[in-house]
């Protein structure tokens, strides 16, 4: 597989605040990459740079993502659009006709637990429902790359597990590339082929770990195999924290 995206010695500051320092990694096509790191280290900033929404000070980004299925950290639904209108927006921008857009969205609504809320405005949704609507929008967009910023942060355990499993199945089915930020080790193990661990601000890559579990192994969160991967990540993070 050829790298879809390559980041080389990327650095970025906001004014006097260095946020990224010499970050380097790559994402292969069809792969799912998780980014872990402490709060405020620069994960969202990194995603925004890759999407071309933010400039950077030094380094190189090869093959930035033009048109991604992007879920920002705070879901960011358009307050003047209903759930369906929000979800179909990327398709609408791509010029897909109304009927196909609506079908596409309608078919996914139940998996996201949003059936019956088609015409609700964002302020009429719960926090978790907003996040799910945002995820639906990203997934439904049909973009080749999914870029998700903490996609399940606001969900309860059971709903989260259900959606994680569903997404994991979808990804391996469609062979789409996915890049996501998470603060949940379990989530990284369930969804990622590879995990990138970042240090505290200014963020640099302090470790990388491939997850070589089968789909079945991933979904059994209590199995020793799963636990081993999780533990491996945790010790990587702890090491980074001590430095």
């Amino acid at each position, binding site marked *: 597989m050829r790298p879809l995206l390559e980041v080389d010695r990327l650095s970025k500051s906001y004014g006097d605040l260095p946020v990224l320092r010499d970050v380097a990694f790559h994402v292969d096509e069809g792969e799912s990459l998780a980014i872990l790191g402490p709060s405020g280290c620069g994960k969202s900033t990194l995603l925004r740079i890759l999407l071309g929404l933010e400039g950077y000070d030094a380094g190189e980004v090869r093959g930035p993502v033009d048109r991604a299925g992007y879920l920002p950290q705070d879901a960011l639904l*358009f307050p003047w*659009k209903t759930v369906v209108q929000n979800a179909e927006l990327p398709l609408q921008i791509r010029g897909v006709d109304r009927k196909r857009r609506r079908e596409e969205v309608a078919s996914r609504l139940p998996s996201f637990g949003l059936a019956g809320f088609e015409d609700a405005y964002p302020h*009429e949704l719960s926090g978790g429902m907003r996040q799910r609507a945002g995820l639906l929008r990203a997934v439904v967009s049909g973009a080749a790359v999914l870029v998700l910023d903490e996609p399940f942060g606001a969900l309860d355990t059971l709903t989260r597990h259900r959606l994680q499993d569903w997404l994991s199945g979808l990804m391996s089915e469609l062979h789409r590339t996915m890049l996501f930020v998470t603060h949940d080790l379990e989530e990284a193990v369930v969804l990622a082929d590879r995990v990138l661990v970042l240090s505290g601000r200014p963020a640099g890559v302090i470790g990388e770990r491939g997850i070589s579990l089968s789909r079945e192994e991933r979904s059994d969160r209590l199995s020793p195999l799963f636990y081993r991967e999780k533990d491996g990540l945790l010790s990587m993070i702890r090491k980074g924290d001590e430095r």
Partner: protein
Amino acid sequence: MKGKNGWKGYRWFVSLGLIALLWYGVTAIFRVPTYLFPSPAVTVRAIVSDAGFLGRHVAITIVETLAGFGMAVFAGVTVAILMNASRLSRDLIYPPLVLSQAIPLIAIAPLILIWFGLGILAKVLIVAFVCFFPIAVNAYEGFRSVDPALRDLLEAFGAGRADRYRHLYVPATLPGILAGLKIAATYSVLGAVVGEWLGGSLGIGVYMTRALQSFRTDRLFGAILVVMLLSLCLFKLVDGASRRLTPWMERRDHD
């Protein structure tokens, strides 16, 4: 919903009734002479007795107002979009815009008459000229305060400029644009009247000048009343449209 709207409309009438009462009270209690400040009764009588030819004047004014207002909405939003295109365009367009609004129309009346004639065209243009400014300013200032995070999100989805206006700038700014429209609607009829005042032979403004010149204060006030009611109607129209155009705001309106 129905009932609530009914009650709301009712309250507007209550407000108008109170004003009429106040007006009546002032003229009755202070015995203000009619040549200064006619009572509502005298005023309404003037309107009724002149209804025939006043109607023709009013019709022309309404046409001018609506045409001018329509042009203003279009021009105002267009100018706002142009200013929003870049900092440079803003800095080049804003000053002449402000300057243009500071021109005393009466002072350049001869020019207006010479360039646009004494017919309906000049009045339509004046209405548009008076009304487009609050719309343009409110729309532009609204565009400027749009949440950049939403703008970025659209960009990530590959949205172009048209998409940005359609899905973000216009809806996000709609409350502001509509506030501008309300201000503009309020001014629009007056704009037409001022235009007629500058010259012409039909319209409420003409009726007014003639009434004023022959010292018919009752007619003058009748005309003022008509102008005010027309303005109010247009305002209510915009207000109603505003409710319909921003359903997401309506639903969260608490009372």
